[in-house]
């Protein structure tokens, strides 16, 4: 029962072509598994479906990036021709004059996009981890979001039926992990990480530090170890 991997490349080695991946983070480098993304780029798996809040933004517009730093994001997988489809809520640059790698590939017809409201994306992922195949939500009523989906009225208000999202792998950035896989996050870097880690068959987590069991206080465990399969120290 060893969850500790010694390198990022070893941790992502078995990801096959056509895998579905959840990749974490809100948009900036905080909470984004930059080392695992780079290892996946080097590993080369292709035709990937990526579920993520953005489709790579920080490297182009510097979102959430401390001045002078160069963040890595999904853009390097797009540039490397590894991505077939993206499921995201914020897929393009807010500034049309500074398009992301994803937008350019999308406009060339090379990548498919499923655009999902952010809260629905989070809830679909949470549902995937929680054994809920589908749920009704008010978000997106009266918009493109309901296209092809069931709409039903509850207590006089319309809701749309959304389905769970699961993945073969999740790439997750944490702050600390113990050898049992218990995780703690820092600040606003647990947003998509906290739900994605529950919804993948194999969750791979990079952390600042791997510690012994007991060195993360029980009350500082944000993600219990049963959700974590592989851990690598940055």
């Amino acid at each position, binding site marked *: 029962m060893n969850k500790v991997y010694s390198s990022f490349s070893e941790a992502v080695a078995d990801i096959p072509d056509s895998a579905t991946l959840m990749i974490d983070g809100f948009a900036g480098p905080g909470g984004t598994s930059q080392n695992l993304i780079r290892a996946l780029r080097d590993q080369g798996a292709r035709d990937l479906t990526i579920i993520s809040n953005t489709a790579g933004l920080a490297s182009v517009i510097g979102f959430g*990036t401390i001045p002078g730093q160069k963040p890595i994001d999904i853009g390097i997988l797009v540039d490397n021709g590894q991505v077939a489809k993206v499921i995201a809520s914020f897929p393009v640059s807010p500034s049309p004059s500074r398009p992301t790698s994803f937008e350019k590939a999308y406009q060339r017809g090379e990548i498919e*996009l499923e655009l999902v409201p952010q*809260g629905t994306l989070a809830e679909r*992922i949470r549902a995937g981890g929680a054994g809920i195949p589908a749920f009704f939500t008010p978000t997106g009523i009266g918009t493109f979001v309901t296209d092809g989906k069931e709409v039903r009225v509850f207590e006089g208000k319309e809701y749309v039926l959304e389905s769970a999202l699961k993945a073969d792998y999740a790439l997750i950035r944490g702050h600390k992990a113990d050898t049992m896989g218990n995780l703690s996050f820092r600040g606003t870097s*647990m947003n998509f990480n906290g739900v994605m880690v529950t919804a993948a068959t194999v969750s791979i987590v990079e952390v600042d530090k791997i510690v012994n069991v007991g060195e993360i206080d029980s009350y500082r465990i944000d993600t219990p170890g049963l959700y974590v399969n592989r851990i690598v120290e940055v």
Partner: protein
Amino acid sequence: MVAERLPREVIAMRVAQELQDGDVVNLGIGIPSLCSQFVPEGRTIFYHSESGVLNYGPMAEEGEEDQDLINASGQFLAPMHGMSFFDSGSAFAMIRGGHIDVTVLGALQVSRKGDLANWMIPSRGIGNVGGAMDLAVGAKKVIVSMEHIDREGNPKIVEECNFPLTCPACVDMIVTDIAVISVQREGLILKETAPGWSVEDVQAETDAKLIIAPDVGNISL
């Protein structure tokens, strides 16, 4: 037009007056993000961001930035007493579940019925939904703050939106650089105009037909 348009800060200042003591507030990108600086004294506001934080306060000082402390606009937050963190499932449970009192959002178009369009300029063919649809449907009060007309001079307050919708019939109030408008069942009620702007001036820059409030007056801060 001769009269000046209100600067972004003044729009934010006017919006800030709407925030009540104890309100949980989510501020969108752009003008909305400025509002927190102008809340009248004596009111405690709890700021929520879909990046996974409640009760954030001022931005971080230069040199003190922490990439693990951001709001949904990517601004760096200073640590603050009583601040709490959570995942996106919980962040949007708060929004969709009706636990956010006020959201302030930017817009591309708002219709007479309060329809909101703010996620895609059709000519681009692609856009970012982000958290806007959830906020528009979930917050108890939706305030739009924006310029009254777009860069080409087209009215943004329209009879019917022709941009893709974010949420139908969700906007409660519009604060622009020339007017304050309340969205009611009967239509758009013009409540306040910027100094030097007549109701006719405002109507001339508005596609939708405005109803003039009996007590219409100047925007005051």
